[in-house]
């Protein structure tokens, strides 16, 4: 089997080939750099014991849709198959540049602009509050506020479009 995996926060995709003897919980993996001898044992729904080149590696994992959250060596990795990720984006929503969406669930505490306003690049648009911390959302580039979809006191979440900025071509 060929794997091409996307790991959140990494530029490059991860490629390796895995050869598994049918019905066996063991195999060999080959990446461009190295070869790995693997065995694995499922402990429970969220727990896996992995042995890589003779060294044991406890793994905790949760699968949500096509995204796997994997805990390994004290770190948390968000992993998905790269092909799948190009088909639809069911992972963490990333704002298209001009669509302003909050990075975390939060409450709107100030709206600093109105529809039709001209804004500078980096100008504050909204202020959110989450977990007692205030965070500002600012314009990614100079332009015009095309739409505002937020009011003070409203609870918002990643993926909600709170504002839309139309670029002015001359300023970009």
């Amino acid at each position: 089997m060929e794997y091409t995996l996307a790991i959140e926060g990494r530029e490059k995709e991860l490629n390796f080939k895995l050869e598994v003897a049918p019905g066996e919980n063991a195999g060999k993996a080959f990446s461009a750099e190295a070869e790995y001898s693997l065995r694995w044992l499922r402990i429970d729904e969220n727990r896996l014991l992995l042995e890589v080149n003779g060294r044991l590696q406890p793994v905790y994992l949760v699968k949500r849709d096509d995204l796997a959250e994997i805990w390994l060596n004290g770190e948390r990795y968000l992993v998905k198959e790269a092909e799948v990720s190009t088909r639809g984006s069911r992972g963490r929503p990333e704002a298209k540049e001009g669509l302003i969406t909050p990075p975390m669930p939060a409450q709107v505490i100030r709206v600093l602009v109105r529809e039709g306003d001209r804004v500078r690049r980096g100008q504050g648009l909204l202020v959110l509050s989450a977990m007692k911390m205030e965070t500002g959302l600012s314009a990614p580039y100079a332009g015009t506020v095309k739409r505002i979809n937020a009011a003070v006191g409203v609870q918002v979440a990643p993926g909600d479009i709170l504002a839309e900025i139309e670029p002015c071509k001359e300023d970009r």
Partner: protein
Amino acid sequence: MFEKILVANRGEIAVRIMRTCRELGIGTVAVYSEADRRALHVLEADEAVFIGGSEARESYLDLEKIVGAAKESGAQAIHPGYGFLSENAAFARRTEEEGLRFIGPPAGVIASLGDKTAARTLMQNRGLPVIPGMTEPESELGILASRAEEIGYPVLLKAAGGGGGKGMRVVACPEELEGALREATSEALRAFGNGAVYLEKYLNRPRHIEFQVLADSFGNTIHLFERECSLQRRHQKIIEESPSPALNDGLRAAMGKAAVEAARAAGYVNAGTVEFLLDDQGKFYFLEVNTRLQVEHPVTELITGVDLVREQIKISAGLPLSFRQGDCRPRGHSIECRIYAEDPARGFSPSPGEILYLKEPAGPGIRVDSGIYGGFVVPTAYDPLLSKLIVLAEDRGQAIARMRRALADYAILGITTSIPFLREVIGSEAFVSGATHTRLIEDSFIRRRPPLNDDILAGLAYAAGELAPGKAAGISPEQPVPLGPWQTLGRWFL
């Protein structure tokens, strides 16, 4: 002794207070907001009273609702925890007016120490060293600007009404003052209901060292040594330890004496914390007194063997301290890491959400004061502190090793936490050498990514997870198991 105590807080500290109550045979009443119906502190209480909306001001900051809940449930005392109403003199006063005991210092003491500038004047008059700065809160930009010139930039804008880094801003030059004042005032108003601020000299890379004090109502005041809390992000502590690597016995004795003196000066009763800044010349300055249990109180508990919540309750019940200064001897070294729902790689931005999997570290010398469980949805309305991981070992080197091991064993899936960041800080040369100061995090630990090294392991784990049958728990070892390679392959030498 009390028969029932209402805990006016949430999260790990509410759970921790209830544990001591239960060990004292005291019933516990939780209060909870809309967002906290399934919170751990509700699950750990004997009774729970709903007090309103998720916004703190509709619930945990609404003192009338809380006092009402205490009366309604028949509690005889209220423990405020930290944050929320814990340093609110009006709350303490209302509690006592209703014939209930407030587990903390008297309202008058909270009020006088809560005014940070007045407190500083008081301590200065008692001969304690203080940082140069204003003695009165101020809101006029013009006046603040001229005072800042007198003190000399950089200066620190601080909220007069409370601590914890809220409403605090470093101002490097006159141009930054206006914006910083607006932000600080707004934050202070939201956090403490009081937007008043003041200015003081900003010390370069000082250490933050605080002393735990205990005072009963019979005039016995002692200290339980120091906590070093220099590691902060956004003026909030993230790692604390005791003893401080910066103190020798002489300095410790001098600061301890000053802390007891400060508590006496204020007429302090109950547990409190006297905060100092220590500069790189070994000179210390009185900063403020926190009139409540600190987040980081467990490191003191571990090195002294004293249960501080128990002492608080006993003092409020009118009992004298059962030990004297000479009986207190620290042993070993303790470190605490605060586990936050936040992403250090994105400027420590909050990361609320559902905890999809949780496994806490365990073993000798490890204590986890947790406010979460697997399946709990971390609400957006409150502080992002999930839990505290505290270790005790024979010396600092072993405590660091133990903390690294414990952090490496702490698995939380579903949300981003500060655990990998804490591992990096704890393992760093700067921390291991003990050369910590309050600017270390900003100076040396910026957005990080885990080493690329483990990516391939994560990828292999992903593949194995896809290949291994979904749920295998409960396979009896007595049952015949299909012969797999675990059984027949590998380094077997039989």
